[in-house]
């Protein structure tokens, strides 16, 4: 019995020992996140400092997150029409698909209404977290002011985009710590006043000079404050802004003068866009006030993390015989196509900006099918052979009445071989016909470039070409995304002057920008530079079978071929002789087309045209036309897609609120919204 009892005791001892091993510790179920930081980090000084740095990522998102930047700012305006790829047709045509839910028509690449909405509110939420915590955590007065200013700027910047796109929005100024669903829209006036107040905080707190490339400083706040004040004075807010106008306009002049004083214009317009590599000289120009930073550091420049814009404006070249897709020429997504407005708004003979913004020539680069282009020229009976680097594609932007070209399809001057395309154009310099030539006007006066069959053939906007990408198919571009440059500041000042009815002064301000746009004395008018040239220093660029770099980039434009005038290096002049009654010829033509009269409307048209010329495709256009309420007239006149079955209407001055927002929020009683409540919250007409 005793032995038995001892056995029992021994066994109980074992049992208890083992149970102790397993888990009687109180903290056995504690979960510890060892591999990541959590939100408590934002209550420490290092956390706030890291959050302040991370805020800059939101400026990059606009350029990184696929097509929303272009769909909401460049499509559906007078500057572009739908190209060969109709993915953004919904945004260009304002058809019935542009609603709170945008269906995947025609492709899944179409931008949805929630993309900008969600992106901006994400930025606002980070800014709110910083603003809520900075006072308790950062005791250093200087840093406190700086972080507050950076966060206020981000918040104002995001709300500014939201208000311009969607109208009055939900004004959220405090961070959420848990689930929040009750939201109502504020009034437009409250939203705009909040934007301006935040910009003033930013203006007061930011440093005077840029501390490192891409960081905010006073001039950025001044530029955007001027823009926001101009927005407040614009026609779209005319139902409530009367009391603000006088003071706002005066302040705009002061602010813009301040920015202009610190930022000289670049000498040559193409300096701004002559990208040679990440953080190259064009990105360091004093003209650039603020740009979202992108870099060639491998960990940062991978897929999904780069500037996406280089894809969206290009016209197709890879299907032409003698061409293969390369890094310099880019991947042609052809969402936005240049149109007649593009060619008509510029004085192409005297204004260098057209030739410096659009790509009109490309060189042959495909040695495996070049040989197919060789043959006998039927017009000169000469044997022609082509080699890599020969001119292969030319867009000839000629004037109406030019009789040099006839339509090959209608029995005009024959091409050398069937592998050539377009009109017959014998290059006067080499004597060889350019294999693929497209002219704007034919001898019979009809348009050739804008024929339906040429929907993928147009001189493309070249401001975003990126020759430094790692592979031909790479979507991650490394160019910085410019948000503000001083040329625009001049035009903002000019617009404020026009609104003050000070037309002569406005013209003299605009002339400063126009003077830079002129051809200078001794300048080679046929010279051309764009970002594709960065391929020359790109170690990843593929070589062809002969070991030569595959490069379609041309350093020439088609100035002389288009205008058919003798070579000259004299300076041009587009600044003299402009008065409110007598504007330049190209502008008068557009004014007639739009049917405008009265000094104010004429001057505003001139200004909007000048904005086009200077800032073509730089993602300001839709917001400019919407706020000046010229979107309807200009889009209907120059963008035929908007005049379709569901023509652009008054409601299109604002975008529809996304359905994901309406479905997820609650009303004041804590329930989901009824269909009527949702309709009431949505913008009128949607």
């Amino acid at each position, binding site marked *: 019995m005793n032995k038995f009892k001892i056995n029992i005791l021994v066994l109980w001892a074992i049992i208890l020992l083992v149970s102790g091993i397993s888990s009687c510790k109180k903290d056995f*179920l504690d979960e510890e996140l060892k591999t990541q930081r959590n939100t408590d980090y934002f209550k420490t000084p290092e956390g706030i400092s890291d959050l302040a740095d991370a805020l800059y990522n939101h400026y990059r998102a606009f350029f990184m997150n696929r097509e929303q930047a272009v769909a909401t700012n460049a499509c559906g305006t007078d500057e572009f029409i739908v190209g060969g790829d109709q993915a953004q047709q919904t945004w260009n045509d304002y058809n019935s698909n542009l609603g709170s839910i945008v269906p995947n028509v025609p492709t899944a690449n179409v931008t949805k209404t929630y993309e900008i909405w969600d992106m901006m*509110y994400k930025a606002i939420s980070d800014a709110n977290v910083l603003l809520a915590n900075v006072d308790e955590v950062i005791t250093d007065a200087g840093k406190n002011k700086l972080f507050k200013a950076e966060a206020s700027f981000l918040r104002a910047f995001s709300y500014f985009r939201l208000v311009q796109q969607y109208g009055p929005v939900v004004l*959220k100024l405090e961070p959420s710590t848990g689930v929040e669903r009750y939201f109502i829209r504020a009034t437009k006036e409250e939203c705009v006043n909040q934007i301006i107040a935040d910009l003033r905080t930013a203006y007061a707190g930011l440093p005077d000079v840029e501390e490192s490339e*891409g960081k905010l400083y006073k001039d950025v706040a001044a530029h955007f404050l001027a823009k926001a004040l101009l927005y407040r004075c614009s026609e779209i807010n005319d139902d409530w802004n009367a009391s603000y106008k006088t003071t706002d306009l005066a302040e705009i002049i002061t602010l813009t003068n301040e920015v202009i004083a610190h930022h000289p214009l670049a000498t040559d317009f193409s300096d701004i866009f002559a990208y040679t590599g990440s953080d190259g000289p064009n990105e360091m120009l004093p003209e650039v006030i603020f740009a979202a930073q992108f870099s060639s550091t491998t960990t940062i420049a991978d897929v999904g993390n780069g500037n996406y814009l280089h894809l969206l404006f290009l016209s197709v070249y890879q299907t032409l015989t003698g061409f293969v897709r390369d890094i310099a020429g880019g991947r042609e997504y052809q969402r936005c196509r240049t149109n007649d407005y593009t060619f008509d708004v510029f004085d192409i003979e005297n204004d260098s900006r057209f030739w410096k913004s659009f790509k009109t020539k490309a060189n042959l680069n495909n040695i495996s099918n070049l040989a197919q282009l060789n043959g006998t020229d039927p017009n000169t009976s000469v044997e022609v052979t082509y080699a890599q680097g020969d001119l292969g594609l030319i867009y000839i932007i000629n004037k109406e009445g030019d009789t040099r070209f006839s339509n090959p399809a209608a029995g005009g001057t024959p091409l050398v071989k069937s592998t050539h395309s377009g009109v017959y154009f014998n290059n006067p310099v080499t004597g060889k016909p350019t294999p693929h030539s497209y002219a704007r006007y034919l001898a019979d006066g009809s348009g050739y470039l804008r024929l339906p069959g040429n929907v993928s053939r147009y001189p493309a906007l070249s401001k975003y070409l990126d020759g430094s990408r790692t592979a031909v198919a790479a979507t991650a571009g490394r160019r910085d995304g410019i948000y503000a440059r001083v040329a625009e500041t001049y035009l903002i000042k000019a617009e404020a002057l026009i609104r003050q009815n000070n037309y002569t002064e406005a013209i003299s301000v605009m002339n400063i920008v126009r003077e830079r746009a002129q051809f200078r004395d001794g300048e080679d008018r046929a010279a051309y530079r764009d970002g594709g040239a960065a391929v020359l220093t790109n170690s990843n660029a593929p070589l062809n079978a002969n070991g030569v770099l595959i490069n379609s980039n041309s350093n020439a434009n088609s100035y002389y071929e288009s205008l058919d005038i003798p070579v000259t290096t004299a300076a041009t002049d587009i600044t003299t002789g402009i008065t409110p009654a007598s504007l330049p010829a190209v502008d008068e033509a557009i004014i007639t087309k739009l049917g405008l009269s009265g000094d104010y409307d004429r001057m505003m048209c001139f200004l909007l045209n000048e904005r086009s010329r200077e800032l073509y495709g730089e993602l300001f256009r839709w917001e400019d036309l919407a706020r000046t309420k010229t979107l309807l007239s200009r889009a209907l006149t120059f963008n035929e897609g908007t005049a379709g079955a569901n023509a652009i209407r008054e409601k299109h001055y604002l975008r529809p609120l996304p359905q994901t927002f309406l479905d*997820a929020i609650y009303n004041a009683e804590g329930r989901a919204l009824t269909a009527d409540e949702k309709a009431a919250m949505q913008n009128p007409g949607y």
Partner: protein
Amino acid sequence: MVTQPAYTQDHSISASGGTRTMKAYGSIGYLDNQGTTKGQEYQRYTLRTNVELNPKNWITFGAGVNGSWQYQDYGQSQAGGSTNVTADLIAAAARIEPYSLPYDAEGNLIVHPGGKARVWNVIDEWKYSTNQRETLRLLASLFTEVKLFKGLRYRMNFGPDFRYYRNGYYNDAKSIVRELSASNASISNTKDFSYTIDNLLYYDNKFGAHTVGVTLLQTASKWTSESSSISGQGIEMPSQMWYAFGTLTSAQLTSWSSGLTERQLESYMARVNYNYNSKYLLTLSGRWDGASQLAAGNKWAFFPSAAIAWRLDQESFLTNVTWLDQLKLRLGFGTVGNAAVGLYSTKGAINMVTLPFGTSTVTGYTLTNAVANQELGWEKTTQFNLAVDFAFLRGRVNGTIEAYRSSTTDLLLTVALPSVSGFTSTIANIGETSNRGIDLTINATLLAMSDFSWNINATAAWQRDQIESLMNGKEDMVANNWFIGESIGIIYNYEKIGIWQDTPQDQEQMALFNANGSQFAPGKIKIRNISLGYQVPAKLLDRIKINSLKVYAQVQNAGMLWSQIKFRDAEYGTLYYNRGYVFGINVGF
């Protein structure tokens, strides 16, 4: 061009034996499965041993180990290629136009035969691309059982589980996935270790007609998983594959990562079984469970259950009914819990971002899209069950009818939030769903003759689930596709009118659709499986001293019996048949 006839071998040997105080069992097995696509193969070695020791009649020790080692060559890998490369060699080969040329005039491989951007040249691709996966799995279970005194036993179980997994892929520079540019490789290692410790106490006793059993349990489990991976490009020698990352420069490394997850579970349980005369049975139990991934303060919950049963066939009034063998009525209810949420979801993790300023790089932190829920707790399902088990005619017919109703409360679901708050989702316990149904199972032996028998097993089930309430009572949450009164997986879309039938009107419609590339056709018949077996009679086997011998053959996925579309496997929708023939022998000693 990319397929091969493949052979599979599957062998195993097992042995068991024992003495009065020891029982042992061991087996080893080997499986070698060659793939029908070139470059694919699979091999597996398995081991199983069990030992049970009974040195004294009051103590038992047991140990068992179950191990397997698997090696799989996936054939090819598209990692690091462009998104256009298709997912498998057979589909890629089917895309190549028969008249296009694979090699150019100098004998170089043409990456896109026929010049089409989405057609890839997969000749010899398996020689230049590989994906090899190795897994080692070891499961052990050890137990000790001690009889303390009359009716009382103590048992301890310990079960560790170890898994090691290595996944490596390598694409040579000549692989078309890399478009004839630099090679790439990657290796990832995962090590999972988990263990469970149970301490149990049993008490069983019989007092006259009453039988009582009590079980007490305390258990704890922990899972730990570590992983690491690295990938890079520009590997110099094909034989290096992923074994020589030290030779690459940091610019050639494309990604690297490592991770750790840990999870724990702890429980206490008490259960009582009681029966009177083997006619009336009662079970009661209660469990307390705690899970580490739930929020602090909500980690523990209580789950009770109870059941009663009545064996009617033992009752006096039914003893004379000879055709009735078994009739048992049971009624029960129980609650179980679910804590399957992502680990660390209540911790509020933030994201690290890397961004450039000019030429320098800076890291910062921002909020993620999901907000942490500090109230996250157990999801509970309570079920009521009523069943009748029956057997008639000396076991010729037996079956069960069961009706049940269960309701789940505090469902763990991801909820969509308005983006204005800065967060787009969170995991929360919201709502209730209910589920009810009836199951019927019948097994019948229709014919039982000396050398021929025919059994039928039939089951029928009816079930309906619906959402009872959501976050705010009886209100639909459209953003998540949840509607009160409908089931969770409801499809919110256009209502489909019907399925194509073989009528002239439908044929016309089909012609229109087929003209655009669809594949509609009324009905198709496919043969899935044919098998044949023969059991060698015992008299023959006695002579060779073998206990049992069976030979069998099978054809799987034989093909379409009747279909208008000849080349397509209608069931799986693929362009090829994975037709297999199996031959086997089972021998028992």
